[in-house]
């Protein structure tokens, strides 16, 4: 089986779906000849032509808004917003418009639109490029939120997103784009939404994460072995829909958990997970739910990002506190 990194897996998903369905098109900034700033769309314009791979004007609201209209016309647009932080300039077209369109039209219309957006720290990007704002979209129902953590899932979840009749925000972990290769099949396959993945089994504590934070948790779990702590890592894969069942079953099994994400901790999606666990499995908890996120300050200059983002050390410290109870 071929091995691919995350960039290659995403490229493969786009190429396969464009091959399979002539309605699928890619649009966004620099997605054509350049192949995107991370090269995820490399080679697509050469293969599928400039009518289906479009370099758009630099304007996020119209990239998303036009995608909505393109979908109503019967196309299947996959829009790229160059960085998730830039969705701020198109936010109203994502949550309030795409998310509500099926409801606003009383079901007459639906929007088969995928929005891809890289995000996350750790690559020393300029301002606004690293912001982990995924939780903002959880408050705009109607949008599915997909957060792959590895190449296999990235391809399967992206194909699932493109085929989904409803809008999907697909957030890509830029730090992991070229972090290594794994087996990723040729051809179309899907990874279903709403099914969390046990990335590592363990008995004492569950580390709950998504996107690049999963990789962080796996490193932390490796280091915890030396301390005699067996840590499981649960990769949520999608925030909407949320796999409440697997989440609760896994936390019941270990009785302890630490939620890790790159967004600021206050009202990050970790707060929602914590509240869900309180409602569902409070009496099965052996220790308070712990959270490790970025601090509640704006993303700092990239020279400071290692201090701002959740680190292995902070995850280890949270696990140790949790184990002491």
């Amino acid at each position, binding site marked *: 089986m071929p091995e691919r990194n995350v960039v290659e897996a995403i490229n493969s998903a786009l190429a396969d779906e464009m091959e399979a369905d002539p309605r699928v098109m890619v649009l966004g900034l620099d997605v054509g000849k350049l192949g995107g700033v991370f090269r995820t769309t490399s080679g697509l314009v050469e293969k599928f032509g400039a009518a289906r791979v479009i370099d758009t004007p630099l304007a996020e609201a119209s990239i998303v808004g036009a995608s909505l209209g393109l979908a109503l*016309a019967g196309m299947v647009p996959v829009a790229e917003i160059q960085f998730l932080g830039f969705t701020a300039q198109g936010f109203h077209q994502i949550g309030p418009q795409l998310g509500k369109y099926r409801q606003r039209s009383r079901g007459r219309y639906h929007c088969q639109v995928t929005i891809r957006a890289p995000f996350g720290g750790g690559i020393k990007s300029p301002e606004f490029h690293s912001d982990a704002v995924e939780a903002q979209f959880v408050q705009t129902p109607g949008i599915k939120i997909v957060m792959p953590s590895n190449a296999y899932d990235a391809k399967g979840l992206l194909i699932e997103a493109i085929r989904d009749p409803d809008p999907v925000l697909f957030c890509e972990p830029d730090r992991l784009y070229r972090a290594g290769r794994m087996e990723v099949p040729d051809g179309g396959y899907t990874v279903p939404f709403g099914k969390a993945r046990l990335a590592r089994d363990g008995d004492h504590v569950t580390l709950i994460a998504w996107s690049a934070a999963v990789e962080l948790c796996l490193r932390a779990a490796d280091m915890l072995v030396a301390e005699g702590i067996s840590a499981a890592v649960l990769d949520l894969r999608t925030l909407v829909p949320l796999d409440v069942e697997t989440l609760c079953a896994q936390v019941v099994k270990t009785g302890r958990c630490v939620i890790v994400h790159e967004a600021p901790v206050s009202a990050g999606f970790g707060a929602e997970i914590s509240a869900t666990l309180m409602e569902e499995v409070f009496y099965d908890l052996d220790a308070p739910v712990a959270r490790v996120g970025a601090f509640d300050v704006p993303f700092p200059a990239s020279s400071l990002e290692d201090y701002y983002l959740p680190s292995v050390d902070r995850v280890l410290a949270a696990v140790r506190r949790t184990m002491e109870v």
Partner: protein
Amino acid sequence: MESRRSVLMPDGTVAPGGKSRMDEELLLEALRWMMKSRLYDQRVIALQRQGQFGVYSPAMGQEASIIGSALALDPQRDWIVPQYRELMATVHHGLPLEVITAQYLGKIAPARIPEGVNVLPTQVAIAAQLPQATGLAWGLRLRGKDAVVMAYIGDGGSSEGDFHEALNLAGVVKAPIVFFLQNNQWAISTSRRVQSATRSFALRAAGYGFEGVEVDGNDVMAVYDVACDAVEKARSGGGPTLIEAVTYRMSFHNTTDNPSRYEDPKEHQEARTRDPIERVQRHLAGLGLWDEKREASMTAEVREENEQALQLAYAADAPKPADVFANVYADEPSRVARQRSELLDGES
């Protein structure tokens, strides 16, 4: 840009050298639609005042813009992307009046735009419909259709960023679209004078690489002509046009508004002398095609149609609690399904 296009003067006479492709038969049809719009507005405002209708934005004063532009379209293949004050344009385009009426009554399934009617939902997030309209027009062309999209916006909406982004993208991809800007001089209480320093909204088209046209928006013949030109251009691959129809909001923003707090009564009175319906009636009377008797019979006929639509809308199924969850996801997340049970069965 040429000067403001005009055919029919406020007194019902034809402007010097004025000619329209609208013949007398079509003018009578246009008048009927304009009267239908006016009578519907008057009726539902009265119902709203009795607590029997939702918040409503009348088209009074803007009927020539709304009907003249809609008449330029082919409902079988073209699309309307409304803001929210173009109700009778969408009805002309095939949306049953009882369906759009049901929307104002808060109904759900009865307010669904039927399949085959090429109309998008009204849009209250001002200008958000414009990038969508550009995408729709672009997509229809990619799908090999010879459709044209007519997208509506106002003078206030033209200040939104989405207006700029939509027109810019439409120019770049040469989308088959007509941006129809009704400059009714008001965005709620904000005067057109403080909306923009431009002397003409139509001028803005130059910045996007396509043509802008200014037309007397109270002149249904001139509106029809410029709209037909723009639709034909779009259909033949010539790209977008921005039409500024200069008109006047003769009533109010919506039924919650009170223009006496900000509108100069003289300006209002002056605008009434330019009523788009009366000038057509005067013109047709001059041709011997209109008199009190004909007005009375058309009024009665149109009023009856409107009443029937209202009755159908009132009688249509009322929303049910389960409709809170209707039409959100094709496959509902389990968490949402559970919330539905919580609402409907009292379970959590």
